[in-house]
Every structure is written in C-alpha cells, then in structure tokens.
C-alpha cells in the first residue's frame, strides 16, 4: 500500500473501515491498541497512519521461537494464536512497536493489522484502502506502487521530501509512505537502518554450527591431551619410586 501524507485529511474513515472488517469495537482511537489495528497520529498539520508495516524481512517473524508469525508471498504477515507461547519477543523486537498483547487475558494472544488477508485472497483490496475517500491510501503491487511514488516525487519535487519511506527501510516494507517533511519529524525512528534487523541476530546464530563442531573437536582434543599428561605424570611418579619396571618406549 502507498500512503501519501499530502493527501490525507485525517477523516479517520480508514480506522472505521478497519474496525468494521475486523469486528472491533467502534470509536476513534489515537494509538495502536488491541482494538485499533491502525491509528492516525497528528504532527502539526499532518496526519500519519500507523499500522503493521508488513516488512519484507519481518523482525517479528524472525524472532518468534515457534513460527507463530509468518510472512506470506502476497505480503501479509500473519499470526497463529494456536502456536504462540506468549513469550512477547515480537513485542520487544518489532522496530515499529506494532504487536499488542492481550495483557488482561489468561490466554493472551497478539493483535495487529492482518493486511486483510481474507479479503486479498478473494481479490479485494484491504478495507482501509477501499474506504479512503481521498486516495491517500492506495493498494497495488509493490513494484507498481514504487514506480507511482517515484513518479509523484519527481513530478513535484517541492511538495515531497525525496524519499519513499519503506523502500529499503529495515530491508523494505509493504507499506510505503510519501511525506512533505522529513520522516524523523513524524515519529519515525531515524536509527533504523536499511539492513533488515534479523541480520543482526543471524550473524550470531550462524556461528552456532561452528561452535558445536570446532568446540567439540577442541574440547575432545584437550581432554585427550591433558589425559595423556596425567598418565605421563602418574607414570613418572611411579617410576621415581621405582615400583614399576622401566618399559621400552619410555616417554
């Protein structure tokens, strides 16, 4: 989805449509919550819509120990509450603070935007994109949206900052943003680079087989060598006492 902040008028229709689609209690909400999978926040005159970015290399998917979160080829990052063990690593790790936890439940689950996966399967647009009256949110193939975004920026370079947010941020996301002001002023974390976050832990995890194989050989070797040493020491000690006859192959 491409979200053009210059076109957003803050009517909140997208949130209403989202709540209806997901059967959430109606009512305007300012922040993402268990009952708001998308929310508008206001920065000066601009409204910015937040939701799960459906990252191309999702951090949440990489950290989940039981693969309760998964990325579909079509884009959506889906959640399976039947698998989830409730470790909350996804809450901790998501760079956009998206997943919300049912803290008050004794069988808590995660809640977040589902990218209207059932609608996409039927060939429909996500509810929010369909509802948006100004075209601030449009839905399409990622490649085409990128082209469209680039076209808008080059057509009116004074209107936009020259950046398509989500093109490569944290490895690229399904949500693309265009803005008239730098994204850091809109509450986007400037410290997130272009490298997908999962690479950070992969660099450590990829060493696991090495540690196991090299470490195993090393420890075995040390055992063997030190064992030999104690044998030699014992032999020498006994030899000093002159208890055992001197063997041919004296060490």
């Amino acid at each position, binding site marked *: 989805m491409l979200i053009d902040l210059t076109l957003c008028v803050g009517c909140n229709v997208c949130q209403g449509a989202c709540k209806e689609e997901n059967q959430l209690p109606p009512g305007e909400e300012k922040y993402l919550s268990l009952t708001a999978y998308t929310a508008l926040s206001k920065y000066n005159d601009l409204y910015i819509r937040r939701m799960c970015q459906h990252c191309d290399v999702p*951090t949440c*998917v*990489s*950290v*989940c*120990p*039981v*693969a*309760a979160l998964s990325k579909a080829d079509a884009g959506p990052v889906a959640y399976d509450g039947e*698998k*989830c*063990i*409730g*470790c*909350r*690593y996804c*809450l*901790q*790790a998501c*760079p956009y*603070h998206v*997943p*919300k*936890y*049912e*803290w*008050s*439940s*004794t*069988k*808590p689950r995660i809640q977040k935007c589902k990218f209207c996966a059932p609608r996409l399967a039927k060939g429909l647009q996500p509810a929010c994109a369909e509802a948006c009256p100004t075209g601030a949110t449009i839905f399409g193939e990622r490649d085409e949206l990128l082209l469209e975004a680039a076209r808008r920026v080059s057509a009116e370079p004074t209107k936009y900052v020259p950046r398509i947010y989500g093109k490569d941020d944290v490895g690229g996301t399904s949500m693309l943003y265009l803005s008239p002001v730098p994204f850091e002023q809109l509450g986007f*974390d400037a*410290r*997130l680079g272009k490298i997908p*976050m*999962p690479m*950070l*832990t*992969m*660099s*450590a*995890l990829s060493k*696991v087989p090495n*540690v*196991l194989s090299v*470490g*195993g050989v090393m*420890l*075995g070797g*040390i*055992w063997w060598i*030190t*064992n030999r*040493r*104690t044998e030699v020491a014992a032999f020498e000690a006994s030899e000093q006492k002159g208890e055992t006859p001197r063997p041919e192959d004296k060490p």
Partner: protein
Amino acid sequence: MKIRLLPRITRWHPIATTLILAGTLAAIARFTYGLGATTNLSDEFPWGLWIGFDFLGIGLAASGFTIVAAVHLFHAKEYEPIVRPAILTAFIGYMLVVLVLILDLGRPDHFWHPLVMWNPHSVMCEISWCLMLYTSVLSLEFAPIVLERFNILWPIKWIHAISLPLMIFGVLLSTLHQSSFGSLYLIVPNRLHALWYTPLLPVLFFISCLASGISMILLESLVFSRGGRDLLPTRLRANLAKVIAVILALYFVVRVENLLARGAWHELTTVTYFSLAFYAEMLIGFVIPFGLLVVERVRNSRRGLYAATLMVVVGFALNRMNTAITGLESYPAQTYFPSLIEIFIMLGITALGFSAFSFVVKHLPIFEPVVATPRVRQVAVTARPEPVFLTRHGGDLESS
C-alpha cells in the same frame, strides 16, 4: 555445616517458608488474573524482572559447566571436591529458571511448542532447545549422586560410559545459550541503551558468566564446609580466585575497548541514571573485585575471598538487570518498576532454590569427596589447618 567468621542468616527456616508461601500465592494470582493485572509489564515494556532473573539464574549456574570442564575435560583433578556442589548448583539454577519461564510465558500450556515448531532464525528457539538439552545433561550428571544414595548402581555404569561425550555436549550447550542470552538483545539496537547494546553482547555475556559461575562456587565452598573442614584447600581457592581475576580483566578490557570503538563512552561523561547504573555495575562487579583479587593476602583469606566473590556476583546481577531493564528504559522513554507480585514470585522462587539446595545437601553426598580419587597433600599457605579428605567410610584418602 557451620559457617565460620561469616555473616550467618539466623531463622532461615521461617523466612524461607514465608517467602515460598507468598510466592505461591502470588503465582496463583498470576494464573487467575493474567499478566496484565498482576505485573507492571506492558506493550512498551514486555520483558521485566523475570527475564532479568532468568539471566541471573543461568549465569550463576555457569559453575556447572566451568567446573565440569576444568576437572573432567582439562583434568584439573584436584578440584574434584567442588564438582558435585557445582552440578547441584547448576541443576537447581536451571530448574528455577524453567519455573520462572513457565510463569512468564503468556501461554504456559504451550511451553512445549518450541520443541515441535521450529524457527531456526529465532534466538529464543535456540535458547529453548539449549535449555532443555542442557537440563537433561545436568540431570544425567546429577543422577549418579542420587542413584548412589539409593544403591541402584547399574545405570551409573551406563552413564559413565557416555560421560565424556555428555560432558563435552554440556559444555558446548552452555557456551551457546550463555552467549545467546546476550544475542536476544542484538535485535533491539534502537531500544537498548548504547552503554549496553553492542554486537559483542553474546561474547560479553559468555565471559561474565564464567566469572560469576566460578565466584558462586567459591562462595559456596566458603559457606559450606564438611564437619568443620574446608571443601577446598586454601591454595586451590586462591588459584580459582586468580582465574576469576583474569576473566574480570578480560571482560573489562573487551567492554571498555568496545565502548571506545563505538563512541558510546560519551554517555559516561555526564551523570545520568544510565551512566550511574553503568559505573555501579562496573565498579562493584569488575573493577573492585579485580583490585582485591590481585592481592595475594586477599586470595588466601576467607573473608577477603568472600567479599570479592560476593561483589562479583552482585555486580553480575546488576549487569544482567541493567541489560534487561535499565538499558531498555531509555526507549521509548518508559520506566518500569516490577509489581509486588512480580517481586514476591521472584523471592519465593529464590527461597525455594536455597531450600532445595540445603535439603539436597543434607540428604545426598554432595560435599563429600568421591571415594578412591588419589590426591596430593597440599602445602599449607596459612596457619589454618588444611582439610583432610575422608572417604565415606571414614578412612583418610591421602594416607591410604
């Protein structure tokens, strides 16, 4: 079991019982009302005190693999008397951590899922596997002590037969998950404060667990003694102390060098909540104990060692809590203080651990040398009489 010259907790039993009872009540509340009502955790601060406790428990239980490696793999046989206490410490430590993890999980009924639903990209998945496998290894290492007590000898032979690969496997697993606890935070460079976040987290976690594991076992060897005799002769204790000092120095150098390289030392030039927390952990856990342990007189004195190792353990606790809590408070400008229920559960579980330890020590031959292990008589360094190792049948091993 008498503790000489050292502070002694009197009325331990009523205190432990109260704590365990309070912890049980708190746990019942946690399961009835859910995490939201009973903890101060939130969407912004999803991990808190309990995760810190897990780090702590696992780190202090590092004695299990370090001592086993030293004695059985590196053949430092003279440390044999502390192998069993070390394995017991590790075993109890891991059991406690598993208990806390189950309380911490939102769906404890799904705790077995990582075994069947894999995600090789997840550090958490790797940790669950290591924890489970290593706890099994520890049970096998611990089993002979129990079986011996009940005179069931045939499985012992069987365990002995596989003991070498088992020990190697255990050491490797420990290396992996001790460092992986650090890797957990590699994915939150934007949340964890620069004083704690570094790509070297797994390495630092591993180095520091070595120091704390050995300190823990030294502490135990000082607190517990068998029939008025020390568990380890002064010379061996002093040697272990030297090892700790070297590890502390190594940690300090790696950590400081890394701070300088990343430019994060700027954070230390101003007095903030974070820089104070950092100074506290470094001074208490690393600098001061190192300063103490390089002095020979301290290494040879019971009180000196007691103080130094206690500081290492406390500093280690600060380090883990800072990584798990303080460091994360910088972003998104959240503060977190554990709720009473969280604290009671933690205290209750700690008390449970100590009680389990003293119970096992009372009923199983933990602080007794293994029969028929030859030992060289040590030269006395201090005036204090050196221990004489007794076999379980009362004979003096060294003179036999």
